[in-house]
């Protein structure tokens, strides 16, 4: 395999016509929310590029993110890993195992030093030098530090590598941290979600391929193209929110009529993700369309932000105990103030009654 070949040459050899490629790029542009005219320009750009080497490291994670990317339909996982990138290491998808796999990893890191794209899913545990999660006898922490050195950029796939995710949930026994807490000197793109939408993962890769740089990010390091708007803003049930029509339980008339799930704890208004527009399973549906509120899985610490079923409006005002204590304090203060006022009155009355007692002034 000659890695110097451009993607266009490789596709031509594989018998992929220009039409098919143009169509592919049109679909990519559409998915990335670019103007339709970007399709032909992308076709031009991608065709002249070499396939970048991609190394995918799984840390403290559940493989849900890998499961998700295998469902990508634009581009399909096959076309992505065979045509567009050179996926050199991915434990779950690769055929090699054991020492062979580790040798592949070492070789890929060495050959493409400074150029490869590092994809990480899973958080990094810090306790006991990261002993809670190891691959081939090495801690995630050590592996990440080494792999990051030669990475052109790091893409954090999933909420765990982006923000710590579920491993970081209180009480965080492994002291799990996101990649950005370990690596400070490399460009990092967060693609959060539990898991992220498959086409969002591939879309970020496609952006890198097309433009040769990383997409514009929001303050939490997420690509604005996919995380620019809240679920609530793009939700098809939004009109019901505006009309004040809400499902009160999961089996009432409102729920059956597809009304807004805000009262049932939907976190859509404070969750930035593309579920409401791109949807899941090739555009079939997304949680709210299936009748359940948004959990807010693409936001930091979503697991520790109170019950999934408590309405967003129910802020933590305290408890009966704290409010009772405040009330008791208030009553005590009031009583003390009144007592002080009465004493002052008594003193004035006494002084007024016995002016002779007063010391001469001046």
């Amino acid at each position, binding site marked *: 395999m000659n890695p110097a070949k451009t993607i266009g040459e490789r596709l*031509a050899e594989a018998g*992929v*016509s*220009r*039409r*098919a490629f*143009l*169509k*592919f790029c*049109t*679909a990519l*542009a*559409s*998915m990335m*929310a670019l*103007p*339709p*005219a970007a399709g*032909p320009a992308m076709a031009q750009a991608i065709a002249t590029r070499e396939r970048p080497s991609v190394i995918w490291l799984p840390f403290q994670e559940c493989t849900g993110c890998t499961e998700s990317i295998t469902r990508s*339909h*634009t581009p*399909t996982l096959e076309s992505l890993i065979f045509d567009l990138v050179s996926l050199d290491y991915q434990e779950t998808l690769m055929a090699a195992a054991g020492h062979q796999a580790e040798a592949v990893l070492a070789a890929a890191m060495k050959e493409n030093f400074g150029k490869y794209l590092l994809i990480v899913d899973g958080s990094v545990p810090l306790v006991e030098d990261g002993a809670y999660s190891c691959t081939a006898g090495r801690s995630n922490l050590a592996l990440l530090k080494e792999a990051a050195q030669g990475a052109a950029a790091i893409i954090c796939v999933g909420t765990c590598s982006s923000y710590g995710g579920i491993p970081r949930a209180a009480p965080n026994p492994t002291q799990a941290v996101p990649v950005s807490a370990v690596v400070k000197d490399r460009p990092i793109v967060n693609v959060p979600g539990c898991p992220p939408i498959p086409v969002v993962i591939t879309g970020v890769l496609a952006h890198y391929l097309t433009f040769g740089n990383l997409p514009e990010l929001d303050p939490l390091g997420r690509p604005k193209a996919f995380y620019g708007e809240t679920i609530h803003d*793009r939700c*098809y*049930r939004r*009109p019901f929110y505006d009309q004040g029509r809400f499902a009160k339980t999961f089996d009432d008339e409102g729920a*059956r*009529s*597809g009304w807004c799930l805000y009262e049932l704890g939907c976190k859509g208004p404070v969750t930035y993700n593309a579920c409401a*527009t791109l949807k899941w399973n*090739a*555009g079939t549906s997304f949680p709210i369309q299936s*009748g359940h509120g948004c959990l807010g899985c693409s936001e930091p610490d979503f697991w520790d932000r109170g019950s999934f079923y408590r309405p967003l409006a129910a802020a933590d005002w305290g408890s009966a105990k704290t409010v009772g204590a405040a009330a008791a304090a208030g009553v005590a203060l009031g009583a003390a103030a009144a007592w002080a006022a009465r004493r002052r009155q008594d003193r004035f009355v006494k002084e007024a009654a016995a002016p002779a007692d007063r010391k001469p002034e001046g």
Partner: protein
Amino acid sequence: MQDEVFPLRFERAPAAVLTGNARPVLAEVAALAERFAESGAGGAVDLAAMPLSPADVDWLRGTLGRGEVSAVIEAAGASSVEETAFAGVWWVTHRNPLGEVVAELIEVAAVPAIIAAAREDAAAGAARLAAIVAAPAAEALA
């Protein structure tokens, strides 16, 4: 009856609701068509980028109607190109090999870009044709 035990009812598809977003899309198409008629410069509207419900898309499709030309392009899945009742306004649907819609646009042009043969492909085709012409007759027939 099952229904009486547990009155399951399908969600009234909110999709059947017109959001009011289709008309501005149509206005954009009209503007593109006008520009195309004047200067020959067309354009396209990506329907996935618009917050349209399926009912909105149906309304657009119905309003634009059908014209004289339709074509199917078999390139990594079927793509269909249909002229609408308004000449130069095309309804383009791209599907992947699994038949899933990967892009849907309204394109304003003399001919949608996907139909035209690319020069690179044409060059490769011409070379293959030339090879056939140059080959001995018996070999060509075989």
